[in-house]
């Protein structure tokens, strides 16, 4: 069997004695959407930030396409085909929508010092293609800070796609979006995974989206994996129900 796209092996992260993630493992295959859910403070974002190399696990290792990336700096991931978005938007606010996209392609343009951005026909076409896909083409000359929240979220996703990722890490992409925008995100992410074969790790609280698009759902609570499986399996899992609704809810459920 070939190497998984992402292989997280037994990572443990603690912040000064507080264990945020404990002996956690997960695998993500090419073209699969893998959701990471759990109550607030369960360790989802910590795990996510370890994979994208912003945090360093004390134990365990992280492998991408069969290569150990545990000690790479965060900026080395883009050229290995890994892109991410942020829970609280991180756009280049003072730059235009187009330049945000060009910067997404930064790692791929190594060695093209001056034939870059607007000056390269190919880069321009690629950027416009992405902006059309995310519905931002008419805003291409606007400043990122001037877009409304939903479009800013889309721009961050478009910038991540400009990396030409094989692994896409999304931290709460649906948070704060309206229903119509979530539908659009649903369709777009499904297409990115199914058609383009990109593996997606999704940290998300919007269950409607998680249940609709995920192939695998991993549930974390208190830094540990408590369940993993298809959306249907996970939703019926007693430990998950307990984590979300509390002991009483679980009792109630089994009594009913």
């Amino acid at each position: 069997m070939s190497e998984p796209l992402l292989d997280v092996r037994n990572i443990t992260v603690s912040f000064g004695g507080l264990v945020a993630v404990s002996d956690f493992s997960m695998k993500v295959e090419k073209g699969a959407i893998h959701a990471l859910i759990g109550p607030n403070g369960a360790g989802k974002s910590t795990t996510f930030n370890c994979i994208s190399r912003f945090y360093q696990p004390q134990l365990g290792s992280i492998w991408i396409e069969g290569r150990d990336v545990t000690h790479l700096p965060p900026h080395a991931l883009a050229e290995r085909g890994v892109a991410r978005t942020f829970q609280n938007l991180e756009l280049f606010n003072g730059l235009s929508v187009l330049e945000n996209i060009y910067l997404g392609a930064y790692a791929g343009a190594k060695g093209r010092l001056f034939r870059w951005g607007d000056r390269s026909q190919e880069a321009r076409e690629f950027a416009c293609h992405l902006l059309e896909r995310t519905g931002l083409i008419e805003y291409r000359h606007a400043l990122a800070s001037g877009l409304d929240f939903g479009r800013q979220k889309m721009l961050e996703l478009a910038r991540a796609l400009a990396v030409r990722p094989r692994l896409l890490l999304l931290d709460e992409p649906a948070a704060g979006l309206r229903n119509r925008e979530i539908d659009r995100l649903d369709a777009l992410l499904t297409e990115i995974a199914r058609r383009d074969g990109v593996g997606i790790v999704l940290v998300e609280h919007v269950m409607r989206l998680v249940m609709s698009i995920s192939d695998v759902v991993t549930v974390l609570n208190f830094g540990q994996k408590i369940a993993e499986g298809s959306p249907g399996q996970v939703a019926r899992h007693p430990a998950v129900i307990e984590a979300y609704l509390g002991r009483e809810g679980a009792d109630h459920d089994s009594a009913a």
Partner: protein
Amino acid sequence: MSRTFVARAALGLLAVGMLCLPAFVTGYVVYIANITLVYIVLALGMHILTGEAGQFALSHAASYGIGIYTAAILNKFAWGVFPLPILAGGLVAGVLGLLIGLVALRMRDIYLALATFAFGQAMQWVFLNWKSVTGGPNGTEIHPTSLFGIEILNDKQAYLLVLALTAALVYATLLLSRSRLGSALRAVRESEVAALAVGVDVRGVKLVAFVLSGVYAGLAGGVFTLFSTFIGPDSLGFQTTIFVLTMVVVGGLGSVTGAISGAVIMSLSSEMLRSALSYQEIIYGALLMGFMMYASGGILDLARRLWRRGSLPANV
């Protein structure tokens, strides 16, 4: 007739005018042109670091001074051959920029401002006390640079060289701003975490910005020695750094044309205020604060806004 054509024609006219300037004006006016060109280079150096990369170094005058003294030392000996002293000034100041950058990587905002301020003060102390090189508080004479065996003795002789070097650096700055590296500098300014996420080596890019800023200031110092016969530590202190910062802010932080126009405005106003030396600092301070509070886009942006208000009253 397109706008680019008009702009190009205007630029061409400006170039011809600049080239012919020494034929029509006195040596004093050429001196002002020379020093203005030096200020443009200084402002470009600060533009790269502060305008593009969003970093601070309140040690700009120190890098400038290092460029001047390095070139002045070479001029004393047989090395004073154009463009060697200028390049050496840029090189030494660039190395110092690297050191400042390495320290700067460990701090940000107010701490960075304070650390680089301290570095600038320390360097001024060196300029004041290393008498064998700098002449101490009395300053020192700068020997002329030679070109093809001929010594460059006055402002008019130096002018074309100063103009050519400044033009080359303006062009280089424009190229940088449109390059992949220029984009990376702006990415670091806008969001360091997002820059990391798209693959920008934030530390490396910051270091490059500090080095380039130092190189520009050092080159400006070297260019200064082409037409000046004297340098003293008084003109290499914090007030000079603030002077350059005012140029970049008045012109409009983040654009090359802003840095250039700010340098021209500040240079000319400083020349006009020469008789009111004691009020200069107050006026610069007020300008800096006024622009930061009411016209953070700089003078060009302000003019554009006023122009629109004037021509389209119904729309405002």
